[in-house]
């Protein structure tokens, strides 16, 4: 970009050719007032407040608008001559005579030395700066609003002055409107989602949550204007390091490794289908994860325990085993709920004066110091009731005690109870990720009926899997708490390390071989191998087994119609001999 030398109010500056005078003045710290300029949209030059005097090399002086007058070699810009100031003043006075005395105008009037605008002020809220129209068109790309009519009748509206589908509700126009003339309104009766569910700020570009790794912002294409309309990209233009790219696409990178630790974790059980708990139906019935989020100092309530109406709860019920130890959901124990439920009770006691009710089936405080913690909770005055929460119902609006009623059978007191509370926390089960089977297949391991990955041996191989070099860590194998997870993770890491240090893998003697002399290359076996150990040699036109990948299941040997595949140690003739032997 060629540079040009110019002066603004006598001060020299070198700028890119074609850049605008306003930018040059800004660089020099010289303020030029404007009502319609915004640096991310094209200059519009409609308000004519930013007028300055420009003197070109030939000495010709004229009034130009600074926002879109291109810098050229040798021009002299004067921003505060009497002619300029008079024009600005008169223009503003004329505008004010039409518009309401809004701060954006009165502030500017004060700056320009207008005490009393000569034609007074009007009532219009719109100054016709066009920022909204331009941001909607140029940045958002929605073109949902525009000018209608012309001359003094001109006004901003949606097409045909009706609610427009073109509007994507981004709010950019309202955000940019200098007078507040444009407002966002709730147009339909959309459900308000409990704000605790999201883990981070709800912006299109944000760090997903505080502890995110890597701790860097990412663009959420669902919210980002660019991915909805193709426009905007303002973030990219403000990033000084030019880190933001909207053109990046998902790509797969191959990494060659010798060993893998699977730590894919779990997913939270969704209690919505269990209508009796009222989740998603009744207010202030939340899951443990949502409660945890609320307690986080970085959460939306700043760590305060609050009801949806913003008030502090007076009583909270914590229901254990929602989805765990339940024939209708998961038969297993999720192992962590008891202890975190106790922790919740402790937090509630610490932060509020609310009553806490723990509704449990059995309290499984099996770890080191766990039982002691339970006793501490009891001492803190938490009501611990043995009996699974049966139902949560609304108490009706006028109820004095609380808005929700929890019903349960107190099996120790042998009586049916109804407990009025403000908030119910559901300790939802840990369940296997819905894609656990796909992951297992990818790594050649198995999943149990519950969806957890199966270890090689429940006692002797709790970390390794039936596939050499693949190790398990954490809840993906089965529910476990943090200490157990750390222990298993360390074990998995150690296993992996030992393989890596050795640098080689010991192989089993049992594997399949294909007799090159017999194989005719029919390729019937190729897709049989779940480990993709069988490859086809296009030049030799025969298939062959990679013994390092082969796990000796023998399926290929059974499937070879030519008898070319021999499953070592389980060869056809060996099995025939066995058959003959046992039947003789």
């Amino acid at each position, binding site marked *: 970009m060629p540079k040009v030398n110019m002066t603004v109010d006598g001060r020299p500056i070198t700028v890119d050719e074609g850049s605008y005078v306003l930018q040059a003045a800004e660089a020099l710290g010289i303020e030029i007032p404007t009502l319609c300029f915004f640096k991310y949209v094209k200059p519009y030059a409609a308000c*004519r407040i930013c007028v300055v005097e420009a003197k070109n090399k030939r000495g010709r002086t004229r009034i130009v608008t600074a926002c879109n007058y291109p810098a050229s070699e040798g021009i002299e810009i004067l921003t505060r001559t009497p002619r300029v100031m008079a024009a600005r003043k008169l223009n503003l006075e*004329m505008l004010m005579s039409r518009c309401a005395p809004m701060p954006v105008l009165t502030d500017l009037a004060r700056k320009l030395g207008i005490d009393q605008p000569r034609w007074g002020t009007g009532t219009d809220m719109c100054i016709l700066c066009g920022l909204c129209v331009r941001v909607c068109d140029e940045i958002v790309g929605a073109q949902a609003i525009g000018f209608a009519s012309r*001359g003094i009748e001109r006004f901003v509206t949606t097409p045909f002055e009706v609610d427009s589908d073109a509007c994507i509700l981004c709010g950019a126009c309202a955000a940019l409107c200098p007078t507040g003339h444009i407002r966002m309104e709730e147009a339909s009766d959309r459900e308000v989602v409990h704000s605790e569910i999201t883990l981070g700020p709800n912006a299109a570009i944000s760090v997903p949550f505080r502890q995110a790794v890597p701790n860097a912002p990412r663009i959420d294409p669902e919210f980002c204007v660019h991915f909805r309309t193709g426009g905007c990209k303002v973030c990219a233009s403000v990033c000084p390091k030019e880190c933001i790219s909207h053109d990046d696409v998902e790509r797969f990178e191959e990494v060659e490794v010798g060993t893998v630790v699977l730590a894919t974790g779990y997913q939270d059980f969704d209690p919505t289908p269990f209508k009796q708990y009222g989740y998603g139906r009744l207010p202030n019935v939340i899951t443990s994860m949502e409660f945890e989020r609320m307690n986080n100092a970085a959460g939306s309530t700043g760590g305060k325990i609050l009801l949806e109406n913003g008030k502090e709860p007076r009583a909270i019920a914590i229901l254990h085993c929602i989805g765990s130890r339940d024939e209708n959901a998961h038969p297993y124990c999720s192992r962590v709920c008891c202890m975190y439920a106790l922790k919740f009770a402790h937090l509630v006691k610490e932060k509020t004066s609310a009553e806490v009710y723990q509704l449990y089936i059995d309290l499984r405080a099996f770890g080191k110091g766990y039982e002691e913690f339970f006793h501490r909770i009891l001492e803190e005055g938490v009501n611990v009731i043995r009996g699974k929460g049966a139902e949560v119902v609304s108490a009706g609006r006028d109820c004095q005690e609380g808005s929700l009623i929890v019903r349960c059978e107190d099996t120790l007191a042998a009586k049916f109870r109804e407990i009025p509370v403000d908030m119910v926390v559901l300790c939802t089960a840990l369940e296997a990720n819905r894609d656990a089977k796909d992951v297992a297949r990818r790594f050649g391991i198995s999943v149990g009926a519950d969806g957890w990955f199966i270890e090689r041996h429940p006692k002797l191989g709790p970390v390794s899997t039936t596939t050499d070099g693949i190790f398990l860590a954490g809840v993906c194998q089965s529910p476990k708490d943090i200490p157990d997870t750390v222990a298993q993770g360390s074990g998995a890491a150690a296993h992996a390390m030992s393989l890596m240090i050795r640098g080689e893998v010991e192989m089993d003697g049992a594997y399949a071989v294909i007799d090159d002399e017999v194989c005719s290359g029919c390729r019937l076996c190729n897709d049989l191998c779940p480990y993709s150990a069988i490859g086809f040699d296009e030049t030799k036109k025969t298939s062959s087994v990679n013994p390092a990948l082969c796990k000796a299941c023998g399926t290929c040997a059974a499937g070879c119609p030519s008898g070319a595949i021999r499953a070592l140690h389980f060869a056809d003739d060996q099995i025939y001999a066995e058959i003959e032997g046992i039947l003789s």
Partner: protein
Amino acid sequence: MRPIVSPKELNDLRDRLRAAHDPNHTWVQLCAGTGCLACNCEPVAAAFRQKIHDEGLEGVVHLKLTGCHGFCERGPLAVIQPQGIFYQRISPDDIEAIIDQTIKHGKVVTKLLYRDPASKTRIEKAEDIPFYKKQVRLVLRSNGHIDPTSIEDYIAFGGYSALAKALTTMEPERIIDEIKRSRLRGRGGGGFPTGAKWETCRNAKEEPKYVICNADEGDPGAFMDRSVLEGNPHSVIEGMIIGAYAIGSHEGYVYVRHEYPLAVKHLTIALDQARELGLLGPNILGSGFAFDIGVSRGGGAFVCGESTALMASLEGKVGEPRAKYVHTVEHGLWDKPSNLNNVETWANVPLVIEHGADWFASIGTEGSKGTKVFALTGKICNTGLVEVPMGITLREILHDIGGGVPGKKKFKAVQTGGPSGGTLIVETRDAKIMRSMEDAGEISPGDAVTSLLDLPVDFDELTQAGSMMGSGGMIVMDQDSCMVDVARYFIHFLIEESCGKCLPCREGLRKLHEILERITKGQGAPEDILTLQEISETLIDTSLCQLGGSAPNPVLSTLRYFRDEYDAHIRDKRCPAGVCRELVGYAITEDCVGDAKCAKVCPTGAITGGPRNLQVIDQSKCIQCDACYQVCTFNAIVRVKRDRAADVQTTARQTWKPVKERTQAEARA
């Protein structure tokens, strides 16, 4: 029709067409321009056809419907060729006489000839009529002679020979050089040198380039471009092709008002014919040069005559102007180099190419070459389209060609350049008033000319006088026009036409209008004059486009030449021309003959008196509609300052005498 693939073939065609022209045949060139259409020329044409048919003269007598002959005031018009007899105000009933006498027996029908009011003689030939005598018709040379829907007619009249010359014998640079040397200036109003514009556009780096014809003629009272497009569309097309060839463009557009249906029709026919003949298309006249023209119809916004707004409109966007700090010749239509000229400019191009720059430059003044077409309207006898050489004086246009003001009224002013142009004083002002204004410092000494009637009409002179050439509208005003009201009227027009994008134009025009309206209502304050000037300056300084930038011209020029009228309104609450309703009162003087015409037209029944008696206006009922003033043939109704109307009326009552008595008294005297 077979496409023409070489200039020679074009010449051959022309020769064939001319050879086919039988000198013994008769051609009736009947004007079918919009003016004559309005004067009912269609029944005349139908009657001609019928008569020709009835007399069995088909094939010997040809009726040709041509474009505007210019003398709209006298329509319907026809010229009988080859004799060149000019008939005017023809009605269907006259056809029989024309055919029987003139065509069959060569006798002139005298009553249809133009009668010169000065010499009181009938004139047979058009070129002898004063209206035509002082004109130099170049752009309009073929208007009135050719059938605009026939490309053969145009070719037979020498059309497209300039194109052939340009494509075969001239390099693009040569053409630009020729145009530059001709010193042709844009006829759209600004007067920018055409050659220089073309050169910049040619040198602009980006491709493709566009050539555009601005036919968005929006000025009230202007119809030059329309007449050219209607009467001779091929001249514009030819000019555009030459321009495109010179600039290096392959795509052109004509942006024409939707309100010009006939122009659009003739232009479209002409384009189709040109395409069919290979004069537009991929290989024009076998030269390898490709060019074509599209037609885009404007929605009638005045601002779309502004080049950037026009281009925005062409692009399909809202027709709003943008800043021209970067010129459209570099970044115009679709951000590509675009050369825009108006209809008349394009129509001049073939002339320059055909006859040479030197010939063209020999016409006109030092700064302005060639001719200019004006639409002469308003209070003038010979309303119509006139083409005059640059440098002709206003007096020649108004008196010699225009025939002066009708009735016994006096010239007052002429408005040129459309609503953004200026109003020029042409009447002889009271020297005493002028001197007192000069003394008071209200006008500068140089302005105290008594009249601008002898002002030579060219770009620079008009600008210097506070008006502008504009596209050629020329509205004549007589003594009955109030200059403050005229200014108010034009500002109101511009308020309606301002796009509203930039603040000064949108808000400033409104403010100007508010003030002017106040003045015309007698509520003006002395400081209003200053405010008007202040707003005008800001408008000129800070408007985004020339619509706003030139909008104060009506105010400033009237302030300059008719300051006394403003003062009369503000200081004396009086409208000297008697136009401003709020200030004027109507009274009937003793001249009343009692024919009661006025009482019949009065919408409020304010006039009473009975037949053959003095008519009296009831001031409480009068709404100053001016209807009575318009109908009184005895100038008995006067427009006076409102508060004096009752007095005048009272005086009349005292002095009025019945007509009979008056005649007797006169007889006695």
